[in-house]
C-alpha cells in the first residue's frame, strides 16, 4: 500500500477519506480481488519460480562425487601440511579451495593427481578416490592418473622453445599418445579455450609470443588435449589482468559442462563467481565446505567468516 508523501498543510481532504476508506479490511480485500481479476485471469499460466540450477538444490551431503579424499594427510619431511582432509568433489561442477597462504590448499590439489609426491621428501597417506578407485594404490600408474586429472598452474608455463601447435600437443607427446589427427586435436583444444580464432594463422610461432592471458589459455588447451576428466587449476588467474581473468572465468563456466574442476584461488570474489562449492582450509584442516552462496553470505564457522571478511590476524 502506498504511504502518503509529505504534503503541504493546505491540501484538502476529500482524497484522504478515500485512502482511509480503502484501508478497511473488508473493502480492501474486495478491491484486491477485483484488481487481481482485472489483470490476471484465473487460468493464467503461472511462471515456474522454482527452476533453479541443479547444483543449487544439492547440499554438500548429496554431492555425486567424481573424486573424494578420505583422511588425507600430506607432509613435507617432518612438517605435516594436510591434517586429515575428507572432501567430496562434485562431478561436472566447480569446487573452489580458499584459505590463507600456507593452509595447504595447493598441496591438496597436488595430491589429487599425485603431483605432491614429485617433491623430494613429500609424503601422503589416506585415500584419494577417483571414480571409487584409490589413486594411491600400489598398482596405479601416476602418469596415467595425471592424464585423467590435468593441471593448470599459477603462471602460464609454455615450453619456451616450442611453437603454439607443439605446446598444445606436448602433453600428448610426453604421455606417448599416438595421434591419428594431430592438427584436428590442436584445433579442438584451442577452440575449447576460445583461442583458435586468435592464433589459427600463427600456429608455428613460439608459444611465448602470446600475451599472458593467451598463454594461460594455451596451457589450459594443453591440459585439455589429453582429454582429462578432472581439471585442477592452481590460481590460474593470479598473473593475469582483469580482462584475461574474465576470459578464463568464462572458460571455466563452459568447461564445467564436460569437466570436473577444482580451482585454488586467493581471489575470493573469483571463488564466489565461478564455484558451485567452496571449501575453506586453515592450517591444514578443512574448516567449512558448503555451497558457494552459503559460504559468502552466511558461513557457519566463525573462522570462515573472519577470513572472508578480512578479519584475520
Amino acid at each position, binding site marked *: 500500500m502506498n504511504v502518503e508523501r509529505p504534503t503541504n*498543510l493546505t491540501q484538502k481532504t476529500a482524497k484522504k477519506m478515500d485512502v482511509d476508506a480503502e484501508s478497511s479490511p473488508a473493502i480492501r480485500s474486495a478491491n484486491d480481488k477485483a484488481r487481481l481479476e482485472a489483470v490476471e485471469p484465473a487460468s493464467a499460466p503461472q511462471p515456474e519460480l522454482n527452476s533453479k540450477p541443479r547444483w543449487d538444490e544439492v547440499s554438500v551431503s548429496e554431492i555425486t562425487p567424481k573424486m573424494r579424499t578420505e583422511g588425507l594427510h600430506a607432509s613435507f619431511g617432518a612438517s605435516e601440511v594436510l591434517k586429515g582432509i575428507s572432501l567430496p568433489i562434485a562431478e561436472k561442477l566447480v569446487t573452489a579451495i580458499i584459505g590463507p597462504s600456507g593452509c595447504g590448499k595447493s598441496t591438496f590439489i597436488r595430491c589429487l593427481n599425485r603431483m605432491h609426491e614429485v617433491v623430494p621428501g613429500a609424503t601422503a597417506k589416506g585415500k584419494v578416490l577417483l571414480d571409487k578407485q584409490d589413486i594411491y594404490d600400489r598398482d596405479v600408474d601416476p602418469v596415467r592418473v595425471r592424464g585423467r586429472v590435468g593441471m593448470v598452474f599459477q603462471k602460464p608455463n609454455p615450453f619456451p622453445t616450442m611453437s603454439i601447435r607443439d605446446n598444445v600437443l606436448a602433453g600428448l607427446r610426453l604421455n606417448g599418445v599416438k595421434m591419428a589427427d594431430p592438427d584436428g586435436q590442436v584445433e579442438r583444444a584451442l577452440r575449447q579455450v576460445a583461442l583458435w580464432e586468435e592464433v589459427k594463422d600463427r600456429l608455428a610461432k613460439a608459444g611465448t609470443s602470446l600475451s599472458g592471458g593467451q598463454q594461460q589459455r594455451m596451457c589450459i588447451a594443453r591440459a585439455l588435449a589429453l582429454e582429462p576428466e578432472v581439471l585442477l587449476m592452481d590460481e590460474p588467474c593470479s598473473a593475469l589482468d582483469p580482462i584475461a581473468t574474465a576470459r578464463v572465468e568464462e572458460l571455466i563456466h563452459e568447461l564445467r559442462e564436460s569437466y570436473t574442476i577444482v580451482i585454488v584461488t586467493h581471489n575470493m570474489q573469483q571463488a564466489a563467481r565461478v564455484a558451485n562449492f567452496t571449501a575453506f582450509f586453515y592450517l591444514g584442516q578443512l574448516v567449512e565446505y558448503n555451497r558457494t552462496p552459503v559460504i559468502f*553470505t552466511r558461513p557457519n564457522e566463525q573462522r570462515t567468516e573472519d577470513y572472508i*571478511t578480512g578479519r584475520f590476524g
Partner: protein
Amino acid sequence: MAMLEYQMADRRHTDREYENELAQLRERVLLMGARVEEMMTSSRRAFSERDGDLARSTIRNDHQIDTLEMEIDELCLQVLARRQPVASDLRFITTALKLVTDLERIGDLCVNMCERVAELCEDPTYPTQGPIPRIGEAAQSMLHDALDAFVAGDANKAEQVVQRDHMVDAYYAQLFPELVAHMMSDPTVVFRSTRMLSIGKYIERIADHATNIGELVVFMVRGQDVRHMGPASNA
C-alpha cells in the same frame, strides 16, 4: 543449521580504513534512527497536547532525515563498490540500505500525522482520542526496540518486535468502530473523526515499518529471512 551470532563490534578488520568506513556507516544509521525517534516523540506530543506549532516545526525537520537517507545510501554504494563485502559485512550493508528506507517512511508518516494534527488544531476539541495514545506508545516502543536490536545485533529482541505488531493492529481495529459510532451519533464530528482515523492509520503503518526493521535485524544477525512467514505479516 547451527547459526553463529556475531558481535560485529568485537571483531575488527585487518584493513582499518575499511573498518572506519563500516563504523561511519553504522554511526550514520544510528543517527538517522535517533532523529526518527525524536520526530515520532514530538509528533505524538503535538497530538496529545494539541500543539499546532510543534506539529509544524516537526514537519520542517523531516528534511534532515531525507538528507541522512541519501548520505547512507551513498556510503553503502561506496563500500559495495570498493570492498565487495561478504558474509556478515554484506548482510550489514544490505540491511542498512533497506533499513533507511523504512526509517525514511516513518519520517514521512510522522509528517502526515503532524499535518492532520495541525488541521485538527483549527477546531476546538478532538472528537475522541480512542486508543490512539496506546497505539502510539506501542508503535514507538517497537521502533525503539528494533533500533536497539540493530545496535546490539540482538536477533531475539528483534524477533520480539516482530511479534508485537499484532497488538498494534488490534488497537487500530478498535479505533475504527469507535470513530464510526461517533460520526453516526454526531455528524458535526465527521471531518475531525476522519482525521483521527488517518492518524491511527499512520501510526499503525509506523509499527509495520518497525516490524520490517526487526525482520531485517534478524536477517543481519542470523542470515535467516523471516519475512512473510505467516498470514499476520502485512508489511
